[in-house]
């Protein structure tokens, strides 16, 4: 039984880790670095994640590139909820990790997006270089490699519970059907 489970885990994790399709989502200057990562010098396509999807339904990875203000926060949460499981988040830039240079003086910036959505990888710099974004993606791929189908389910249950607690209104609007392995 364990052999079957681990082999399924291996195949699933490998395929998930190697085709992380990011969502086209950039709120400020970190977005420019993200574009640079896709372009020819730092080719993100080598790791299979150059397929930027416009629709959150088809994306796996939310690279939150840039400052999130209080007005943007509900939008970010909504986008995250619209993404289909399994989904991962990279908090790119100092602003998304903990407010950055807006942490003490600004009235409008959220001090860290982990107050709204769960974050897998933090990438603090202002702004991070393309190399560091690629490094973050590689680290996320390693994290995905350690995942297990059963543990993912646990994580999912805990996570949806937390989401419904903090924003029950939004989750009610989306009707979710679960098919396939998950």
């Amino acid at each position, binding site marked *: 039984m364990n052999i079957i489970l681990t082999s399924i885990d291996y195949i699933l994790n490998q*395929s998930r880790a190697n085709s992380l399709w990011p969502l086209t989502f950039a709120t400020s200057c970190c977005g420019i670095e993200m574009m640079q990562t896709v372009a*020819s010098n730092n080719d993100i396509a080598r790791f299979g994640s150059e397929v930027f999807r416009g629709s959150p339904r088809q994306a796996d990875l939310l690279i939150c590139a840039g400052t999130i203000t209080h007005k943007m926060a509900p939008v970010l949460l909504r986008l995250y909820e619209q993404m289909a499981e399994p989904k991962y988040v990279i908090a790119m830039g100092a602003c998304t990790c903990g407010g950055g240079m807006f942490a003490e003086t600004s009235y409008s910036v959220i001090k860290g997006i982990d107050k709204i959505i769960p974050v897998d990888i933090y990438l603090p710099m202002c702004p991070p270089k393309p190399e560091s974004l690629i490094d973050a993606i590689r680290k996320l791929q390693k994290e995905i490699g350690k995942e297990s189908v059963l543990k993912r389910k646990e994580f999912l249950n805990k996570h949806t519970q937390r989401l419904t607690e903090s924003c029950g209104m939004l989750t009610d609007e989306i009707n979710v059907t679960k098919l396939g392995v998950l």
Partner: protein
Amino acid sequence: MNYLYFLYIEFLAKHNIPQLFGDITFYVIPCCIIFAALLIVVLALVLFERKLLGWFTQRKGPNRVGFWGLLQTLADAFKLLCKENITPKGADRFLFNLAPIIIFVPVMVALGLIPYSSEFTFMNFQTNLLIFIVIGAMPVLSILLAGWASNNKYSLFGAMRSVSQILAYELPIAFVILSVAVLASSLNLSQITLAQSSAKGIFGWFGIPCFIGFVIMFICVIAELNRCPFDLPEAESELICGYNTEYSGMRFAIFYLSEYALLFANALLLAVLFLGGYLSPFGKYLSPMIFPPEIGSILVYFEQAFWLFAKSFLIIFVIIWIRATLPRLAAFDLLKFSWACLLPLSILNLFLMVILKYLTGGGYV
């Protein structure tokens, strides 16, 4: 096909299996072959496109999964297979699920109509070409269904754009195909291929006398497939993802793959109509010259299939090249281009071909 049929029946008779079994399975086997080949070709095409797009923009393209990135699309397919399926609350559940199911059917039928080699057409009707054109325009039905059932304004916009595009570009295709039918005096794809065979090799193909038609049809095929520079139905900067905005997981994968399957089918049709189908570009086949006659006579069929695939992949290469080069057209320019430019040109082309046919005395050689 008859030749293969007798071979198959003979093989079964040797092993004491009744002929009835052979009669039934003979038509099931091609379907399985088409399905398996289609899946492989489509997965290969996705990688082909991503690699080529990488090279055109001086990148490396996917190269980490498997040797040289060969397993990249397999990883994508697995991931999409196991991803969550979301049905939006406002969507029409039945139609929403039906749309991705029916999009693959016309492609499968269309692939059965192509003559892969002189003995190998799965469905050989007298009016193959006509059926292909009718079937080839059907996926737009499922695109419209998807756009309507999603209950999303962007999906609906994308679907509507796709329908208007197909309406505009189907007409020039019809005229071009008429001109090819005039040249070959037939609507059967195998006979159209045979009509292009001559000792002149490349110069006997219909792409030479009917060059205007070839260019027109090439442009129309790109437009029908919703590819750049005519990718208005999926314009990412305007419509998020077009008609498949609300689709996720496997249903989206089916849309994504069917696009490539259609691309492959249309490239095959272009190769058959204008580039001589399964004919060798050298005027005669190479395998009987290289191999001893008893092997060579069988290998000829594979060589014919090889030439057809090589030609269609050349066409696909050019289509991807165009995608990497050109920006997107505006919606009105797109329709104007078809109605005001391509349609008159295709009618002119038809007249030219009729005159050519008349002057060469009934048979263009």
